[in-house]
């Protein structure tokens, strides 16, 4: 009988232990939580892999071990403020002591705390396959092809040390699931706008990105853009708000982040 819990001491040991019968687990705040999306009762824990708790800096980038908890990253002097802004979206200190950056990416919930910010920053993930080989791919590609990477282990995340990124979260209370988490990044004059919308999904706003990259938009124009964008097919949600409200909220949120980035 397969072991129900394997506590890996290294990433290599973890990928060797991975089978179709088990899943990786790091902090446990998603896998062990009531109503979890993780449908499995056998685990490979990477919580205690030392290398996966490291934050390493180079000239332009920071490599963050995937098992770093939100709180470890908040306590790190090397982690940039734009990411710390998103890390604070998880309001509970006790959960921040457990939840990991890798876990947040791997579960990729549509109320994700970090994924929009990491996407807007142009993050890459370093994956290790069962042979112990590693490769880096863009986070956007990882998310788009997540099913093909389900047995790969996220060992680290690469983010730029300096990036112009703003993030915002809207929820009923600090602890509630977010109705939306949005991030806007800009690099070399090109904007990247993305939001995780609860009960809808992760959305990249191409029109907004193009219009912002082409030149300035006023607050009203951004709000109108979302209001009239038929591609954003939000419907009224009893829990997270009416379609008109959430579209307006997207617009005003991006407009405010745009102002802050410009400022």
């Amino acid at each position, binding site marked *: 009988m397969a*072991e129900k*819990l394997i506590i890996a001491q290294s990433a290599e040991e973890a990928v060797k232990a991975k089978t179709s019968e088990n899943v990786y687990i790091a902090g*446990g705040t998603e896998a*062990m939580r009531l109503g979890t999306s993780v449908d499995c009762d056998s685990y490979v824990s990477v919580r205690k892999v030392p290398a996966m708790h490291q934050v390493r800096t180079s000239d332009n980038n920071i490599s963050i071990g995937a098992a770093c908890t939100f709180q470890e990253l908040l306590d790190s002097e090397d982690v940039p403020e734009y990411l710390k802004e998103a890390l604070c979206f998880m*309001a509970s200190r*006790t959960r921040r002591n*457990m939840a990991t950056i890798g876990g947040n990416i791997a579960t990729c919930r549509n109320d994700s705390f970090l994924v929009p910010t990491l996407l807007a920053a142009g993050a890459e993930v370093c994956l290790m396959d069962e042979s112990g080989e590693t490769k880096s791919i863009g986070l956007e590609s990882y998310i788009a092809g997540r099913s093909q990477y389900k047995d790969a282990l996220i060992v680290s995340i690469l983010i730029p040390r300096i990036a112009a990124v703003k993030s915002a979260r809207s929820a009923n209370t*600090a602890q509630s699931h977010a109705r939306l988490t949005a991030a806007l990044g800009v690099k070399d004059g090109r904007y990247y706008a993305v939001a995780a919308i609860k009960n809808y999904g992760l959305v990249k706003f191409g029109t907004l990105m193009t219009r912002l990259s082409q030149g300035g938009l006023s607050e009203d124009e951004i709000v109108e853009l979302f209001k009239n964008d038929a591609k954003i097919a939000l419907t009224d949600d009893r829990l997270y708000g009416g379609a008109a409200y959430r579209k*307006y909220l997207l617009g005003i949120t991006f407009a405010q982040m745009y102002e802050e980035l410009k400022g």
Partner: protein
Amino acid sequence: MKIKCIINGIERNYDVDPTMRLRDFLVSKGHFAVRDSDDAEGFCGSDTILVDGVPVMSNLMMAGEIDDCEILTPDGLGNTENLTIVQKALIDAGVVQSAYNSPATALLLTWLLENNPNPSKEDIKDCLSGIFIRDAGYEHYYLAVKLAQEKMRDGEYKTVTAPSFRDEYKVVGKPGAKVDGPQLVSGGRAFVEDFVDADTCYMVCVRSPHASAYVNSIDTTEAMKVPGVVEILTPYNTPETHYMQAGQGEPEPSPHDRRLLNLKARHVGDRVAAVIAETLEAAIEARDKVVVDWEVLPAVFTVEEAMAEGAPLVHAGPVEYRAGAPDDLDEYNARASQDPREGKVIYQFPLHADVQKNLAASNHGGIGDVDKAFAEADAVAEGMFQTTQIQHTPLETHICFAKMEAGRLVVVASTQVPYHVRRICSWVTGLSQNRIHVIKTRVGGGYGAKQDILVEDLTGYAAFATGRPVLYHNTREEEFIANSTRHPMRVYVKMAGTKDGKLTGIYMDVKANTGPFGNHCLTVPMNSCSKTLPLFKCDNMKYDLEIYYTNCPPAGAYQGYGTPKGTYGLMMVMCELAEKLGIDYKDFVLNNHVDEGYMLEILKGLGEGREGNVVPVGSCGLRECIEKGCEMIEWGKDASDEAPGPDWKVGKGFAMIMQGSGLPGLDHAEAIAKLTTDGNVILHSGGADIGTGLDTISAKIVSELICIDMDRITVLSGDTDGSVFDTGSYASSGTFFSGGASLEATKKLKEAMLQEAALQMDEDPSDLELRYPGEVHSLKTDRTLSYYELSHTACSGEGRGEMVGHGVFVTKASSVPYGAHFAQVAVNVKTGEIKVQKFYALQDAGTPINPEIALCQMYGAALKSIGHSLYEDMILDENGVCINANMTDYGVPMINEQPDDFKSVLVDIKDEFGPMGAKSISEIACNGAAPAIGNAIHDACGVWIRSWPMTPEKILKELGKI
């Protein structure tokens, strides 16, 4: 899997199921203070422990993960006899109340101070950001940290924990000495789950997936085959006794409209069968194999749907009356459904109901002539206010353990009403009350939810029917869907006034949604009028009150009853009327509130199904509360410089509030005080301390009258065998009634002691006094007699017996607490966000016997009320399924939602009738937030938000942004 770890400093080796939840594992090893309030939702923090010095939620870890780790659990701090500085500071700050996760909080703050000896307010907030508290708010946690720091640094507290009242008393009105504090904060055995026998069986319920459906049949064949299943209870093998679950004095103003298990499900989550098995896993497996054949029926969810012509009927069966049956009852019942699955509705006395129109109860009345007042007014304002369904969310979900012992049913319950539990268990089992013993443990949060006998009835019956010990424990989801909640209400208010600032007319039309059963269906909505209209000096008042059955989750008692909703409508319309009249709202309120001696004619029609007592206003600190609050919040001063940013507008609002102190003429409390043979006191109180400090109140009363220190007094309460009758802790009756009974019992004991001492000392009783530190003293001869000698002699071979005092407290006197709550809010006019920047709760509570505990209860209830006003809402889909039946989605306020500037103030007014001059404190504090915040929002941005919760979306709609 073999693991090695250190738990609370001791090296341990275990062979564990590696994927077992760590919390379950720790509890199995005796660390039962690691509690679970959210079924591993990662929300409440009751399961917090330290792993290698880091706070984590043990429900979200596996046992195998602690191999080679060092664990500290809350019970690894100090114990009852040896508290740590932090544990003691938490008690002294008044935050250890129902205390289900106080041990976890003590652990977190200990960790904080060890790692950061000088934490800022933000550091403390961050530390407690994963802890949910409902009873005491969070404000005094900052105080607790400060006290602990002072004690560590200076060896003593430098900060006064709370103001003191009444110089003539030594302990009454003074902070300190909560009698159950050490037990609770240290994680000692306290709650029902700590007293469960090892051989217990587990019960789970089969619940309806439909909002309305007949049960055609229940097939238990496959379920009974599951190994370990003991019994499956269904409507077919349980009594047909009709009763209700409301904990109220008998005869209750609630219809008897249910059986233990009904053949008609009336809401999603309604129980129709119960599985009892030797393990929880077996019970769940069997539950999933019970096959119910449903006949789905149309349902109604709102008052409007229930009122509609031809609406589906929630109760369509015949009606009976125990008293006051109408003459046309036979004719009425001839129109009723003859389907036996409907059951019947039995009224103890008429509630002016009509089940054939879904009308559960009604009341209409008033004084003067409102139509004339409206016609002659200079201005009239009106509005329709909608409130939603709110859950109590106690940290300890409903739980009951029951067993048969020596032919008697023993019910171990987390309840506010042990004697009502005994009565209702007697009804459903057929056992007489002498054969039922109810033991109330400490209660991990009630707020009215545990005033209803929601799980004790079925658990008690299951133990009786099977002869086996049975444990039942609600999941958090069941707490939402199968419990009682706050009644959703629709309150229409119309008010008239004249330009000279006089309020001339008030009309209220209240329509309440009681859900499928009529628990408190008259009382709760009645409070929306009876605990609001007596605030106003107004000659013309009228109210229409109708309560409807629907297929929503059940409603019932909730702290404040209907008062928060009536206050919401009245105080917002009053604010609007003042604006229309061109009068400052403060001046308008001050012109029209009642004061001492004003005769409250309006009360005549506002009894609970009978004529009410017309009484004058007694002690009343209303004006002081309003004036002091206006000073504190700088009423009239522009606060736009306090706006958090350019898109924010700031406004101020307030509301005056009132409640009651128990139910005069209905409530009844008793206590027995006795002198032990060594000269100390045991007080047997019928009252139910639900964490609010009632036992401490009783102990303080004994201490004052018998002149001994608190540690020489033990209070035993809430045990139906060991104490005497008390209607229970609800309707703000604890201090006033149960405390009143303790006072009466102690007076009797004192009298008995003086009489006995007079005989022993050969003196006249009138020449004797009791004095500290526990002796009888002769004013005439200066001789003394110690209590030890007094009692020892009385209990000797020639003695006259143990000295005992039996006190009974009943009254028609009404001691009404008053107050005013103030809010300053900032509204972001672009996003609709609302920040409560300041919230000041000022209350006249008579003599606050436990002032630090009283202050925390004000914080807790006010924060709860802020939550109801801004965030909380049980949302049903079109089929009546609650789609946010969990803590995260439901939206309770935590420390991050607490106002930045939060103050509770006790306004000193001594009451004529309450024990030591006390009135009630906690419940009233639920009443003010909605109108205070609503009026402040209007002041900030000009819109009136007339429905709970006041969300950003509603703000934006009113502002025309969406």
